[in-house]
């Protein structure tokens, strides 16, 4: 399998203020790379879905394991059928401004 430049990580998290802080804080203090974030509440639940765009380097495993240790993170997986282009659309949005 050829290695893609980026991967998208899919997280299910408890939906309460502060969760984002927890997750971005982890990336900052462990110097993991993070290129983009998409987040939204999952309908009819107390959870949210987060999609993180991450460089596909050799720290992916460690990143997943550290995320899994966070209390408010319910699941983490690499999203194989997510379309990286959704993040391209965000960059278009950002450029427009």
């Amino acid at each position, binding site marked *: 399998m050829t290695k893609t430049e980026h991967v998208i990580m899919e997280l299910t998290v408890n939906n309460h203020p502060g969760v984002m*802080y927890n997750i971005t804080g982890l990336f900052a203090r462990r110097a993991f790379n993070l290129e983009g974030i998409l987040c939204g509440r999952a309908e009819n639940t107390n959870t949210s879905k987060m999609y993180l765009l991450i460089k596909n380097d050799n720290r992916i495993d460690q990143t997943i394991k550290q995320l899994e*240790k966070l209390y408010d993170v319910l699941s983490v997986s690499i999203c194989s059928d997510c379309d990286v282009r959704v993040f391209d659309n965000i960059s278009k949005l950002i450029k427009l401004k």
Partner: protein
Amino acid sequence: MKCNGAEIVIKLLEEQDIQKLAGIPGGCNLPLYNALSKSRKIQHILARHEQGAGFIAQGMARTTGKAAVCFATSGPGVTNLLTAIADAKLDSIPIVAITGQIPSFLLGTDAFQEVDTFGLAIPITKHNFYVSSAKDLFHIIPEAFRVAEEGRPGPVIVDIPKDVQLEELEIDNWPAHVTKSDSNLLKNNSIDINDIKKIAQMINESKKPLLYIGGGILHSNSSNYLREFAKKSNIPVASTLMGLGCFPSDDKLSLGMLGMHGAPYTNLILRETDLLIAFGVRFDDRATGNISEFCPKASIIHVDIDPAELDKNKLTKFSVAADIQIVLKELIPLIKEDGREEWSKEVATIKKSNPLPVTDYYNFYQPINLIRQIGSLLTPDTIITTDVGQHQMWVAQAYPFQHPRTLLTSGGLGTMGFGLPVAIGAALANPSKKVVCISGDGSILMNIQELATLADHNLNITVIVINNGGLGMVRQLQELFFDENYIATKFECKPDFTSIAKSFGLKGYDLKDDKNPSNTLKRILSESGPCVINIPVDSKEMVMPIVPPGAGNHEMIGSE
């Protein structure tokens, strides 16, 4: 029955079997204190600084393995607590800190003594809870204990606004005591026997296996299994600072501490092993030195309860995330009895020709001698706490530890000021044991106010100040790596610790110019009750050997 949030907290703490907790009151935790005053089961220990309260909780937790509790008020109470919390995080110590917060309707307004406890807590806790209504306490308090103790232990903060502490609930039926979930046990029990077989096979095929053990052995209470395991197959044991005491230091298989200030033979034997059995360790840089040079000839087996530690700093041949105790139990019957004559001989030879640097045996004030003498005068169940610096490393190198949880030291964060309040916590949790805090003249000043707490409770604690007139460890680094350019490491004011002790109402002794210091020390240590002993040592003494920053462990200096 009507109960307010604060009363619910206290009752839930009683259900957790908390008997003593340390703290300091203030505006935003007054309701908690009011409720605490009515408890017949919980004794409050009034610290003199919140950092002291946090470390007292640590002393209880480190000796019992159970989560201990501390209280602080909002704002400065919380910020004072943070160092003790961060220290607990790095050494995986279960504590539950309950902090008062300003009333929720004022949050975010920069109200008096408002600080973002949640934000401050994130990077230094295992998890932290903000309580937004009193009814949530029934879930959050037991959950805080579960999180603190389960898996890899760690500190938890529960932040409770004052209005939630005062919120009254009508409670018809007190919810049944939620017992610790056994989901974790199940998870741990479900280790794959094939993994164990694989580990056993690797060990049985190895010619030169070596155990590298650490805090994980303590946390899983498996030192007895470790002994049985090492003995059965004659595997030498090197320990991290955190692991000291898990394996008896006088056993012929014991290699003492490895790493930056390990004995020369320990680091050299590590170079020869063909199979490193890493149990309950995290390949910390102080232990491994330059990681690419660590155990160059060895395959590595790594077992730790925290999956994130596996392959974090060093790639392993085989690793399992599991409770060490369960792994050891399964493993013991599968490994073969083996004399390992050749390997034992090689180990013995390296040991003999590369000892810790020889010391002037007849000089009482030589630090390594001094620690050995202290060790010979105390019983093996004595609990030793240290501060941070040279004295800490001398203790690690030379004190004859026999049992787990007899050394309490700040391993991961290296916090000066740790020793005294942790000793107080240890003594509170172990009233029948003697506790000795071995400190430096720098570190002791960082929490000296806790002598007042010690005096309040008249605990059986001896504080020994190894007095070299400055910040010895930093001075040593300046001597070795900054061309002897000394700055900010020598004290101008040299307080008289004997008088300080006396002013707190404690006994104070000074071994300076003592004609027979050995005898005096013997007499003092045979007494019980709190006291402070000042022992002067030469300011030029160094901890040897030392692995320079960035070097491999075998490149230590000062080992001849």
